[in-house]
C-alpha cells in the first residue's frame, strides 16, 4: 500500500520552517481522587503558514493541549513533562515577564466561548486601549495601533462604528467571535491559536468565521492552530490534522490523507462516518459505539480498543506508538502491521 502523496495546492504552500513545536508534552491535573493525565506525551510541530487542526471529542484533552501550547494550564493542572518550543525557544524556561511579552505579541489565543472573554462593563474600544497600553513595544504610537485594529475589523467584515463604542452585550455571538479574532491579531502575532472557533455559531456565522480565518492566513501570513470536534470545519480550513483520543495523539497527517488515504486510524474513519452529510440523501451516517473512556479509568493497551472494530489481543495489552510513514503518523497495531507487510 502506497501512502498518499497528495500534496494539495494548499499543503504545498505551507512547507515553511517549524514555528511552534510541542515535544513529549504531558499535562497532569492533581485532583483529590488522584492525578489525571489529560494530555499524555503529545508531540506536534506546526510549520510557518500551516493551518493545523486539533480534532477530537469532548474530554479528549484538545483544549488543554491548546492552552499548554502557550504554557497556560488552568489550576490544578500542571505541565508534567516535555516542552514547548516557539521558534526554537523553550516556553517553559521563560520568565513571567518574557511570557507576558510573548503571549499575544507572538502567539495569540482565542479561547472557546469568545462571548465570555470580554469585560462586560468596558467598551470594546476601551479594551483595545488596555491591550495597546500593555504592549508599547509593538505599537509605540497607539494611533497606529488603533488604525491597524480598524483595518483588522474590516478584514473580519465588521466596521469600527459597529464595534468600538459598544459593550460586549450589544454584539451578537457571531460578531463577538470575529471581534475576538481581530483582538488576537492586533499585536501582529505569527501564530494564532483558536479553541472551537465555530462551535455554538449558526451555519451562516460558521461560514463567515471560516472565510475570515482563510483571509487572515492569506493576507497576514499568520499560522493558525485550531481545536474542533467537527471534521467538516477541518475539511474547509486545515492543511494538517492531529487527531486526539483520550489524551493521546492517534494520527497526524496532511488534510487529504486524513480524508482519503487507506492508511488511517480506525477512530478517524469512525469519526468521518458519524457526520450527517448534506450532500448525501438517506441515513448513511453511523454513530461510534460506546463512549470516550473516563480519564481515571483508562483501558489497558490502546485506549480506543473497546470501541474499535479492528481490535485484537495485542491492542488490549500494548499501547501502540505513532509510526510515521511519509508524514502520515498513525498509532494503531493493525494499521501499522498492514503497512510493514506491503
Amino acid at each position, binding site marked *: 500500500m502506497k501512502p498518499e502523496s497528495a500534496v*494539495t*495546492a494548499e499543503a504545498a504552500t505551507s512547507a515553511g520552517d517549524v514555528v511552534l513545536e510541542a515535544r513529549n508534552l504531558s499535562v497532569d491535573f492533581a485532583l483529590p481522587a488522584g492525578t489525571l493525565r489529560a494530555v499524555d506525551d503529545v508531540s506536534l510541530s506546526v510549520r510557518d503558514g500551516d493551518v493545523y487542526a486539533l480534532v477530537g*471529542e*469532548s*474530554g479528549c484533552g484538545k483544549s488543554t493541549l491548546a492552552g499548554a501550547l502557550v504554557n497556560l494550564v488552568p489550576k490544578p493542572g500542571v505541565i508534567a513533562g516535555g516542552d514547548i518550543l516557539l521558534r526554537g525557544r523553550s516556553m517553559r524556561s521563560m520568565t513571567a515577564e518574557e511570557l507576558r511579552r510573548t503571549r499575544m505579541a507572538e502567539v495569540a489565543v482565542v479561547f472557546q466561548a469568545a462571548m465570555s472573554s470580554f469585560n462586560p462593563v468596558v467598551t470594546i474600544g476601551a479594551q483595545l486601549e488596555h491591550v495597546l497600553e500593555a504592549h508599547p513595544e509593538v505599537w509605540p504610537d497607539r494611533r497606529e495601533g488603533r488604525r491597524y485594529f480598524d483595518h483588522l475589523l474590516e478584514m473580519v*467584515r465588521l466596521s469600527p462604528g*459597529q464595534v468600538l463604542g459598544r459593550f460586549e452585550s450589544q454584539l*451578537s*455571538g*457571531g*460578531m463577538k467571535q470575529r471581534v475576538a479574532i481581530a483582538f488576537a491579531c492586533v499585536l501582529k502575532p505569527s501564530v494564532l491559536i483558536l479553541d472551537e472557533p465555530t462551535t*455554538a*455559531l*449558526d*451555519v*451562516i*456565522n*460558521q*461560514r*463567515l468565521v*471560516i472565510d475570515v480565518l482563510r483571509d487572515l492566513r492569506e493576507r497576514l501570513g499568520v499560522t493558525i492552530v485550531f481545536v474542533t*470536534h*467537527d*471534521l*467538516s*470545519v*477541518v*475539511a*474547509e480550513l486545515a492543511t494538517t490534522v492531529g487527531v486526539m483520543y483520550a489524551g493521546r495523539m492517534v494520527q497526524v497527517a496532511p*488534510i*487529504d490523507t486524513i*480524508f*482519503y488515504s487507506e492508511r488511517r486510524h480506525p477512530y478517524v474513519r*469512525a*469519526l*468521518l462516518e*458519524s*457526520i*450527517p*452529510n*448534506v*450532500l*448525501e*440523501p*438517506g*441515513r448513511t*451516517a*453511523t*454513530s*461510534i459505539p460506546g*463512549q470516550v473512556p473516563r480519564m481515571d479509568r483508562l483501558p489497558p493497551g490502546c485506549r480506543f480498543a473497546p470501541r474499535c472494530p479492528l481490535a485484537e489481543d495485542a491492542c488490549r495489552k500494548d499501547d501502540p506508538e505513532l509510526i510515521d510513514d511519509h508524514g502520515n503518523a498513525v498509532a494503531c497495531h493493525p494499521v501499522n502491521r498492514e503497512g510493514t507487510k506491503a
Partner: protein
Amino acid sequence: MNALWTQRRRRAPRATRSVESGVEGSGVESPALVELDGVSHRFRARDRPAVDGVSLRVADGEIVAVVGESGCGKSTLGRIGCGIIEPSGGTVRFRGTDVSGMTGREAIGFRRCVQLVHQDPFASLNPGLPLRTTLGYAPMYHKIVSRRELDDFLLDTLRRVGLDASPEFLDRYPHQLSGGQRQRVAIARAASLNPRLIVADEAVSMLDVSMRVSVLDLMLGFREDAGMAYVFISHDLGVVRYFAGDGRIVVMFYGVIVEEGATEDVITRPGHPYTCSLLQSLPVPDPRRARSRREDRAAALFTPAGDAGNVGDAGDGGCVFRRRCPLATDQCATAPPASDLGGNHRAACWFPDKVAELSASVLGAAD
C-alpha cells in the same frame, strides 16, 4: 386556575370555538395535530417582531424541520407551538381547539401531549435535583404512573434512551453526566409522557458531531414505536436531511417563512436564495468538494453578515431577504407572493428562474 397562560386575554369566545371545531371535525379534513394560524410575536423593546404572521400545520406523526440562522424566530415559533409563549397575534389550535381558551383538564392534556426538548442540556436540567426527581415529576403529575411503580417506570425510561438503567443512576445529579447523557435525559423526560408532538429546539447542536447521529437515531426510534410528530428546529441542513428525510422543511428568515416543501425537494432544488445561502454556508466533510465549492461560490458570493443590520425593515412591505440577496432588484421592495414549485413546494421569491440557476451552482458541486 389552570389556564394555559396565566395572564390570558381571551381571544375567541367559547361559542366560536365550538363552531370551528365542529366544522373541522365534520370529516371534510381531519384537524391538524397542531396548527399555527397567522401567529405573530414581538418581544418587548424589540423593533421587529420575532415571528410575523406565520401559519404552519403539523399533522399526526409528521416531521417538520424549521430551519434558519440565529435570530430568525425559529425558537420563538417552536415555543409558541407548545404553548410556552403566548403569541401577540394569531391562533394556535391543538386538534382543532384554540389553546388560548383551554382551561383545566383540557389545558393539562395539551401540556402533556406537546413536549419541548431544549437546546442546551446544561441549562435545561435543574442542577439541584437528582434524575429521579427530574424524570419522575411529570409522569406523577400527569398520573401516568403511581408512586409505587415509579422506580420501575424510570428504569424502563432510562433503558429506552440507552442510559445505565440502575437505581444508582437515578440518584445522580446533572453535573455527574456528560453532555450527551444529559441530552438523553432531556429527551427521556419529554418522551416518557407519551406526547403526540415533541418540539426539539436545536436538540443536537450543542453535542459533539460524533454524538449527534446516535441521539437523532434515538429520537427516530421513539417515533417508530409511538408515532409522535416532531418539530425539529435546526440551522444545520445536514442534520435536517438525516432526521427529516421523509418529512418537510420550513425555512424561516427574520420572522417569516420564505420557503417550505418536502425535505428532499428543498435541499436538492431550493427555491429561495436564502435556502441556497444556508446550503452554501454549510461545511462539508470532504476537502476536495470543499475546494471546488469554494471556487463555485466565488461566482455567486453572498455577503451574509449574520447581523440584524442586514435585514429588510420591519413592516416596510418589501422582501425580508433583499438586503442580503444577490438577486435583489427594485421589484423586491414589494413582498413577493409564495410561488408554487410543484408538490406542495413553495417559495417566496420574485425570480424563481434565477434561483434555479443559483441553486444549480450550489448543487453543481453536490453532483
